[in-house]
């Protein structure tokens, strides 16, 4: 339990610091690379919670695919590789106040309603359990997600292709 708490704290500090860099750095490519650290930290937290399949999927899909897509987006929109001046809204105090207030309300309600409730002793859920559940209880959402992915694929091609008259 102590080792888990130590690893949780290390990962959590790393994730929060990297997330702050993602929203504050002026270099778009650096922001994408800091985002990699946050996503890897999330995968580590999943593994700490015993959700091995979700953790591995997080690494495959997010770090493997989404980051590459975002970097392609940076490249195709001809962003500067170095620092960019015109990247933030002129008044950043209001978003900061909104986010802080939101965190205050959320943390108060979380601490008030759970009061440090302990997680049960960790059990690793293996991929077989997850797939049994997907293909029995959640077969309709699963099929809906596959149709949604197809629709997103076609939609992205239709939106992004060049208009040829």
């Amino acid at each position, binding site marked *: 339990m102590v080792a888990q708490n130590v690893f949780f704290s290390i990962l959590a500090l790393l994730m929060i610091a990297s997330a702050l860099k993602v929203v504050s750095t002026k270099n778009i490519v650096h922001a994408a690379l800091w985002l990699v650290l946050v996503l890897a930290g999330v995968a580590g937290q999943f593994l700490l919670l015993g959700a091995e399949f979700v953790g591995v999927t997080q690494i495959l899909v997010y770090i493997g695919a989404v980051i590459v897509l975002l970097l392609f987006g940076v490249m195709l929109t001809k*962003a500067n590789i170095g620092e960019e001046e015109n990247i933030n809204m002129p008044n950043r105090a209001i978003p900061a106040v909104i986010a802080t207030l939101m965190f205050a309300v959320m943390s108060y309600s979380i601490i008030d309603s759970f009061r440090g409730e302990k997680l049960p002793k960790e059990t690793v859920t293996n991929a077989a359990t997850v797939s049994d559940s997907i293909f029995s209880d959640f077969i309709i959402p699963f099929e809906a997600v596959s149709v949604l992915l197809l629709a997103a694929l076609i939609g992205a091609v239709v939106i992004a292709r060049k208009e040829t008259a």
Partner: protein
Amino acid sequence: MTITQYLLLSSVLFCIGIYGVLSRKNGVMVLMSIELILNAVNINLVAFSALTDNIAGEVFALFIIAIAAAEVGVGLAIVLLIFRNKQSVDLSEIDQMKG
């Protein structure tokens, strides 16, 4: 390990993501902040899945990962279209629908 520490971590990430969405001007940066928000939600789902010993939370975390991938694909297509039409991805310049 308590459930509170996971929920607090996820709410920190969520609020940082909200700040990023509201304070960034570049379309690609806004998409990155949305990824932060979606990951915060996933931490919540998996933590509650461990708390209640119910596999449904992990299954829905997988669904959210799939939907996030689709969202980034369509979002980047929209950003590219905006860039092609306006030669910039500055979100404060996109005000054609302003009355």
